[in-house]
């Protein structure tokens, strides 16, 4: 929702803190779930992520979530899906070149980033997304990546 997503950017600091506390808990839970159920619950988990992040950020489920590095402004709402923005076409009032009724998501992103604790994260380069991940859950991806890391650590130990 547009108004909620603008709110999320304006409260990027709070959202960042929330994310930092809630995210590890979500990942731990998901790690447990995926261990027990394998891929059986992937669909509802993905739907839950899409619902929650959709509501708060107009998340487009690109499958490579960058919110923590984009001031809590989802870059996939940029009509040019720019991952390192903004483009040079931003209007003088900060509105999007392509959609004049929408605030440029990257003007919001730099604004959101400036409110965050880790306000430098936006300065690192995000390479173009892997389009195969579209529609997939970033949470599950992270949970499974974590799993392999942990497994590796376990074998190494």
């Amino acid at each position: 929702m547009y108004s909620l997503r603008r709110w999320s950017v304006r409260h990027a600091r709070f959202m960042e803190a929330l994310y930092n506390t809630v995210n590890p808990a979500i990942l731990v839970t998901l790690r447990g779930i995926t261990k027990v159920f394998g891929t059986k619950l992937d669909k509802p988990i993905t739907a839950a992520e899409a619902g929650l992040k959709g509501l708060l950020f107009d998340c487009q489920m690109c499958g490579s979530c960058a919110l923590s590095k984009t001031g809590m402004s989802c870059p996939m709402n940029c009509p040019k899906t720019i991952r390192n923005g903004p483009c040079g076409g931003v209007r003088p009032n900060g509105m999007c070149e392509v959609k004049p009724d929408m605030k440029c998501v990257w003007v919001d992103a730099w604004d959101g980033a400036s409110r965050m604790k880790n306000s430098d994260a936006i300065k690192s380069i995000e390479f173009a997304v892997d389009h195969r991940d579209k529609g997939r859950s970033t949470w599950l991806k992270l949970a499974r990546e974590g799993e392999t890391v942990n497994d590796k650590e376990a074998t190494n130990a």
Partner: protein
Amino acid sequence: MPDIIDKNVVQDVERLGTNPGDPLPMLDGHVSHGRFERVLKDGHFAVTTEIAPPDSADPDEVLARASLFDGYVDAINATDGSGAHCHMSSLAVCAILTRVGYSPILQISCRDRNRIAIQGDTLGAAALGVCNALCLSGDGVGAGDHPEAKPVFDFDSISLTRTLRILRDESRFLSGRKIDLAPKLFIGSSINPFVPPVENRVNQLAKKIEAGAEYIQSQYCFDLPVLKDFMARAVDMGLTENCYILPGVGVLPSARTAKWMRDNVPGVHIPDSVIKRMKQADKPLREGRKICIELMQQIKEIPGVSGVHVMAYRQEKWVGDVVKKSGVLDGRTPWSPNSAETTIGTVN
């Protein structure tokens, strides 16, 4: 004496090859075979301009348009469907220009091609003698005459820049597959310091340089204080040490067009004072050129600036005039195909 002349000729042939379209030998510390890189690395104040690709399949039209700039510019940008309008492709324009020895800059926009097409075109461009590329995001399709087209945007300008660096420096495709002969391109990108978020534009510049941009051309500058501020921050951050910055300047034909551009061309910022000056002028055409000349002269004095990029859409015939009157070339004559007096490549 004849010895010396012979030696010079031999040296020139060594530097230039026998055919003006041949690639120049690559100098130490250079990344491309091109003349544009040589001019910048020799420390000259460079001038670039933009050619409008024709709505035609006629190569002579391309050469005719390029010849307007003879002796006044070091490189010519070939736009890639600018304003999301369909014209002859940037790659084809560049290929025609390299045949006679010009230094074209291949503009690559992310709007129309995905990573497979772009990487292929990059190899093709280098094979056709193109030595410079400029990475752009591109205007949205809605701005052009085919608003029903599918926007691609597989990359943004920063991912594109990094990709070109990988092709050139690591001699491989993004997939990891090896490239036998890497495309030796001098790689640049663009910046617009004049639109929001103005205070973060220098961070955007930093990201572009980190991604691999070796030169930067900017959107039109009609607002000198903003540019000065931007450049001061760029210099402070050390961004001009490894990157050449060429701010853009434009030739305005009238107050009406200036206003129209401001309202309709994405990313163009023209202060009211400039529009007022155009409105009050007895001869607006001349005033537009005067403004451009003054800006070029003032931009040249800004620390960290390495050249200017002159954009004169539909006013191309005036490019030579403004460059000459501005004096920014310091008496240097850039290479052109037909002039015997041109100082070849760079002045020594």
